[in-house]
């Protein structure tokens, strides 16, 4: 294998699995260390800079970082990254001194943001410090978009949402709420310098089955229903409720129904439990609230009598793994159909981005799935002035993706307004490596491995929580628990950096490594090398760190897979050929890289 080029920012970035997996590339170990030091405000700001909504995401994020956490591979359960983010938000002090300075003179460019959800808000935050004038339009009476309308208050309390939304609105956004956008042409006529469309995926899918029209009054689309609960139009639901669908919206619908007075709530899913779209912890919460989830039951017919919904007929299927493709498909089991009584149905079977208000003759093209055609790097549409982000760009995703899109779109908008090339002038990623060595046996990070199991987040008393939709279920870690959970982080951003000319090949690092990560061996191709290491490197998703040839003709090969970043290799190296260096990956963002 060729020697690894550690100057390529993506090499060490990949080693920080959580940061690599995060769409916004939030420097997770960085803020976890700050939490361990009880520097909550700074921990919050590290997050705010990167993902814009730490308090909200600390409660609602889909957590792509956690399955990626190295701790899953070295032990079992990942660090509770998401809930630590909340610790920072819950315990932070005054953040006003850390807010970006806002120029008193505007730069003369006007930007229109359509939709007041996370994507638009994040774009506003990136653009305002550079002097842009930002106008925000939304049909709802308040900002936050789906964060306000679709996430129930027992998961995301209103004050947490409002704090982070207002933080941005108060940076000088000209907000136009209750503003129904009906025509993109009209918007373009207002002659802004650029437009950002962040209107989300607001159309919930429906099911056209026999009886659908007749029982219309008893069926609600999940996200619309959650929205009307959020804005206080709906206060109760009665009788037996069936929630159809297996995603997080379905989980929010069933748990909300339970709190609003439903006699019974059942979730019915057409697919198997394991492949449901809902996050594992959302499923667990629903089950914990004793809401049954019935799987492998595709609906067939709505049964009604005199215009009143009586129940639903479901077929019975089982999941079969297709041998050729390995994918699951569903076959009828042959059992008789199942009839389930109900008075109300909440339909939560998916949603779409949908822009009927964008005319199709204004140079903004859509693909065959009715999604806007976008450049994946710049988020620019085929109309040069119009940029997209969030769910309206590539379909429904989590809030963290909206932040990630927004940073890129903001860079594009800025380059566009400056007349620069959106790709050629894009700032590159960067990497800083800083040695953590403080003394002969002293490191400036806590190298010691903590074998503690993942700590469980305390919950509110169930009788209280189920009686009031505004009672937050999860109480979050307190300072002490947060500090202990923070200690479980392996500090994967403190990299093992190897300097060939210093190595005397004494094997000290090989002998001390608790995880058998290091091998000195003759070089070979990757498959061959992977099989010949001290411990075979079977996880091909994790890179091998290969050195230049050493004096004995061998190379140093380190399997990054299960390295604990404990620093023992550096500690036992007599010549400092190994050093522990903290990698800071610079992900370009407007403001830090303003051109």
């Amino acid at each position: 294998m060729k020697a690894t080029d550690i100057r390529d920012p993506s090499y060490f970035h990949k080693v920080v699995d959580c940061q690599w997996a995060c769409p916004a590339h939030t420097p997770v170990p960085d803020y976890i260390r700050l939490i361990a030091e009880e520097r909550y405000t700074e921990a919050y700001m590290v997050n705010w800079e990167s993902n814009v909504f730490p308090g909200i995401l600390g409660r609602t994020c889909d957590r792509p970082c956690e399955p990626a956490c190295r701790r899953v591979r070295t032990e079992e359960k990942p660090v509770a990254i998401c809930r630590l983010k909340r610790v920072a938000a819950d315990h932070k002090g005054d953040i006003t001194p850390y807010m970006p300075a806002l120029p008193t003179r505007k730069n003369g460019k006007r930007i229109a943001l359509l939709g007041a959800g996370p994507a638009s808000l994040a774009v506003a935050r990136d653009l305002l410090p550079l002097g842009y004038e930002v106008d925000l339009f939304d049909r709802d009476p308040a900002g936050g978009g789906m964060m306000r309308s679709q996430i129930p208050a027992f998961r995301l309390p209103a004050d947490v949402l409002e704090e982070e939304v207002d933080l941005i609105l108060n940076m000088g956004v000209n907000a136009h709420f209750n503003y129904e956008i009906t025509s993109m042409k009209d918007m373009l006529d207002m002659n802004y310098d650029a437009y950002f469309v962040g209107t989300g995926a607001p159309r919930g899918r429906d099911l056209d089955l026999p009886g659908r029209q007749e029982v219309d009054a008893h069926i609600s689309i999940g996200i619309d229903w959650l929205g009307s609960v959020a804005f206080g139009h709906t206060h109760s639901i009665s009788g037996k409720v069936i929630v159809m669908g297996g995603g997080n919206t379905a989980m929010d619908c069933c748990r909300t129904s339970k709190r609003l007075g439903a006699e019974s709530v059942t979730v019915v899913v057409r697919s198997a439990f394991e492949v449901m779209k809902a996050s594992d912890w959302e499923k667990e919460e629903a089950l914990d609230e004793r809401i049954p989830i019935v799987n492998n039951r595709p609906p067939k017919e709505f049964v009604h009598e005199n215009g009143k919904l009586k129940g639903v007929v479901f077929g019975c299927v089982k999941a079969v793994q297709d041998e050729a493709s390995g994918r699951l498909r569903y076959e009828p089991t042959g059992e008789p159909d199942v009839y389930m009584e109900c008075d109300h149905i909440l339909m939560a079977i998916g949603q779409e981005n949908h822009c009927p208000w964008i005319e199709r003759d204004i140079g903004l093209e859509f693909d065959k799935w009715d999604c806007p055609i976008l450049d994946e790097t710049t988020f620019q549409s085929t109309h040069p002035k119009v940029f997209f982000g969030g769910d309206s760009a590539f379909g429904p995703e989590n809030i963290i993706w909206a932040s990630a899109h927004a940073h890129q779109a903001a860079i594009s908008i800025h380059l566009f307004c400056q007349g620069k090339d959106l790709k050629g002038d894009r700032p590159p990623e960067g990497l800083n490596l800083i040695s953590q060595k403080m003394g002969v046996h002293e490191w400036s990070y806590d190298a010691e491995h903590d074998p503690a199991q993942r700590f469980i987040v305390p919950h509110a008393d169930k009788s209280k929580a189920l009686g009031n939709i505004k009672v937050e279920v999860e109480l979050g870690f307190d300072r002490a628990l947060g500090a202990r959970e923070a200690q479980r982080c392996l500090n994967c951003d403190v990299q093992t950096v190897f300097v060939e000319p210093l190595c005397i090949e004494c094997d000290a690092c090989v002998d001390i490594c608790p995880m058998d990560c290091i091998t000195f061996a003759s070089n070979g191709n990757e498959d061959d090398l992977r099989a010949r290491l001290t411990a075979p490197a079977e996880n091909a998703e994790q890179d091998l760190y290969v050195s230049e040839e050493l004096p004995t003709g061998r190379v140093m090969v380190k399997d990054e897979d299960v390295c604990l970043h404990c620093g023992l290799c550096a500690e036992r190296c007599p010549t400092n050929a190994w050093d522990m260096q903290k990698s800071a990956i610079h992900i370009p963002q407007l403001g830090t890289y303003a051109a």
Partner: protein
Amino acid sequence: MTFVAKPRVHHPQLPLNDLGLNRRDYEGAVSTLCAGCGHDSVSAAIVQACAELSLPPHRFAKVSGIGCSSKTPSYFLNASHGFNAVHGRMPSVATGANLANRELHCIGVSGDGDSASIGIGQFAHIVRRRINMLYIVDNNGTYGLTKGQFSATNDKGSTSKKGAPNLYEPIDLVSMALQIGASFVARSFSGDKQQLVPLLKGALLHRGFAFIDVISPCVAFNNHNGSTKSYDYVRGRGASVVTADFLPKDFIATAAETVVDYAPGTTETVALPDGSRLRLSKLDESYDPHDRAHALAHVLEAQQRGEVVTGLLYVDPDASDCHEILDTVETPLNALGEAELCPGQGALDRINAGLR
């Protein structure tokens, strides 16, 4: 001295041996020796050898004297018995331990100071008594603990870190062991576990006195250009004469191994008491690892050429050990009852009568 504790967590695929233990179960405390010390590699090789042989870690007696080398029994086989003796007196303690309980595997770790200077008398006599044990000398040619004076195994002309030459002839413990009757004699290098681990396995299972001289560089005081015991020197001048591969009891040659093209007359297998074997591969057809005089001559000649001969230099699988020589009782002394240990006046009278 390392202050970061070695985490107990290990590689998720770390294999288990026949006893259901993994290699980490054979470790000891984290070393307090200088970072990069060859002795730590020797300890790691012992850990690997014992784990791969599936030897029960609590059935070992570890003995040592004084010096950097003699600290190392703390760094392997945490679950075993140990005795850290006074300087140069490890052989006495090892002799006693082995005579008292012949069922324990006995590992003695000593250094060039402990065995070739203050303890040379003890060393000579434990060799000739053929105590059934593995005797390792971590040989770095210097007194590391007292900041780098030449030891008795330091080669003449080799220099100190500051450049002063050594004026005296070296003592070669391998030659001594060959001459006085060790039945398993090898030399190896701490930086070559591929060679060292099979030698350790063979030596651990060998019945009789097994001696391994391990060149184990001192990174602090004797790993410089004027040294003949540095990593670079041994890598450059080391010459293996007979390499040993350890073949376990249930070893069946794989297809890949049977096609290895050994020149005729250059390989042979030596049986070990538990049914496993050592496969010896000679790099020089004329070398005979069963001819004591020939081995001794080869070692001396190589030494004159400035070469470091490594590998399994001599082995006699049929030699008698101390228990055979002394006709000791099969049962360990601690397992004998009072009746056997104190047979009474009648037995004493019979012995006395036999001496009249």
